[in-house]
């Protein structure tokens, strides 16, 4: 008889915490530990990492015995489009300027929604660009390039 995971939510949370804990301890090995009296930069993160692994095991372990809640499946499109829009903005704003980066952000992020009307998205883009340039460039004076040149 195999082990059944009663609460996938908790089980995977536990795994995530264990992963971060192991990562913290592994990386902290490069930093001097010092002693309790003179703690080195590796001391505190190692303690935290250890505690995180411990808690991770308790959470994942409990998930084998209690709970009955599954993970709700998510839609991939909103996730990809929202994060994609942000990443596109991130790498376009420096070389191409705010106006074009905003275009990418608005179009890609709107593709993540349920409805997409070209006319509406166009208007939204114009409005947001005007607002962003007016408020952030002229208003606050952020040193961000507006146009590609």
């Amino acid at each position, binding site marked *: 008889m195999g082990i059944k995971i009663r609460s996938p939510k*908790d089980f995977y949370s536990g795994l995530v915490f264990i992963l971060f804990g192991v990562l913290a301890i592994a990386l902290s090995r490069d930093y001097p530990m010092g002693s309790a009296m003179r703690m080195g*930069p590796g001391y505190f993160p190692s303690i935290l990492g250890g505690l995180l692994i411990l808690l991770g095991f308790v959470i994942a372990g409990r998930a084998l015995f209690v709970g009955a809640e599954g993970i709700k499946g998510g839609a991939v499109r909103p996730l990809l489009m929202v*994060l994609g829009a942000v990443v596109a903005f991130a790498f376009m704003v420096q070389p191409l300027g705010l106006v074009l*980066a905003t275009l990418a952000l608005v179009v890609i992020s709107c593709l993540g929604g349920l409805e997409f009307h070209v006319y509406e998205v166009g208007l939204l883009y114009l409005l947001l660009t005007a607002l962003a340039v007016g408020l952030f460039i002229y208003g606050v004076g952020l040193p961000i390039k507006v146009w590609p040149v």
Partner: protein
Amino acid sequence: MMELINHLILGFGVALTPINLLYCLFGVSIGTLIGVLPGIGPLATIAMLLPLTFNVPAVSALIMLAGIYYGAMYGGSTTSILVNIPGEAASVVTCLDGYQMARQGRAGPALAIAALGSFFAGCVATVIIALFAPPLAEVALKFGPAEYFSLMVLGLVSAAVLAHGSLLKAIAMILLGLLLGLVGTDVNSRVRRFTFGIPDLFDGISFVVIAMGLFAFAEVITNLERKGKRVVLTDVQTLLPTRADLKASWKAVVRGTGLGSLLGILPGGGAIISSFASYTLEKRLAADPSRFGKGAIEGVAGPESANNAGAQSSFIPMLTLGIPSNAVMAVMLGAMMIQGIIPGPQVMTERPHLFWGLIASMWVGNLMLVVINLPLIGIWIRLLTVPYRLLYPAILLFCCIGAYSLSNSSFEVALTAGFGLLGYIFAKLDCEPAPLLLGFILGPMMEEYLLRAMRLSRGDPTVFFTRPISLAMLVAVAFLILMIIAPAVRRKRKEVFHE
């Protein structure tokens, strides 16, 4: 008493300057706006607008950011009452009776009592801050590193206890936050930790990046997954509550204010828990509890007063001890640090203008909010009809510009997207992100105090148990954990959150 009056005069002198009035008005208007709009909370907004305040004087910046927080408490009730969707988390319980009142054609009185109750609560909470903050700061000035470390443990653990969801997961999120807070160059050894050789990480991860990613981006993604239409009840005829309404609700307002002020001060407290607790209390005290959920005005008056009182009094531990009691306060603390202010009890004595100016501005802001919310209610109702698909690209754009302006680096914007992904995963796994943010802000400070306490004690860890104040706090921590493990309390806690 004389001293208090002098302090308040000093404070109003600062808060009533034209420029600060303007920042206050801007803050409370934005707060009302995002409170009204479901899908964006005060935390994401403060993180989003924070980069705009870098070149603004510290007092004005904090006045504005604080205004967003308590302004959202006013705005949130409008959406709960008219749409049956909480405009923000602390107005969840207002939906229960507020929306029912609106369906019975009594939206006006519900809105009015929510605003007036909030105003009363805001005024009382302002006085409570002025009264209780100075003695608390005085005590805190005597704290050594051991006391501070234990205080932070207490603050973090009680935040985990009061967060809803699993206690173990909340504590794990705190630990993860503490670890993320250590990324960057260590102040003591100059060793670069967890930076993977990336220069953008040498100064650590900005808390703006974490707050935007975990809260704003993750919220947008989960909102987009949800389908369904909202029905807005725009029919608000008369705002005036009847004499019977006032008679039925004034006691609830007073009780809600008291409860909120108390729960706001406790570490881990704040607006959300206050509103839940107040609703439960009102239902318990009512002569006929069956009216609740069917449009009982006390069910609006109590929680709405409580959430505003709780929002404001949660400034007390943040301003006097430098300990954030909830995630919004953690962001406020971060905002102070960006302005070069070291949080702690010395803020009050070293920067009285900032401290008392901020407190006085809260009273001014509450007055503005009553005006903004009652006569102008029509404008906010119209805003409710703006569909979310036009809103979220704006949220994303403002976040991106804000993240980019931190240090004009594309890396930080991309990192924000990374935290957005992490936040989405945590949302799917039911892990609350708020404790992580608290841990993140306190991480470096906690390490510093631990290090100093251990150096002073020559490496003897019993120092935390032999110093009385520190011991008392750790006993409180143990008590809290025992309490939550005890099944009776566990059931009760569930009840409060599920009602």
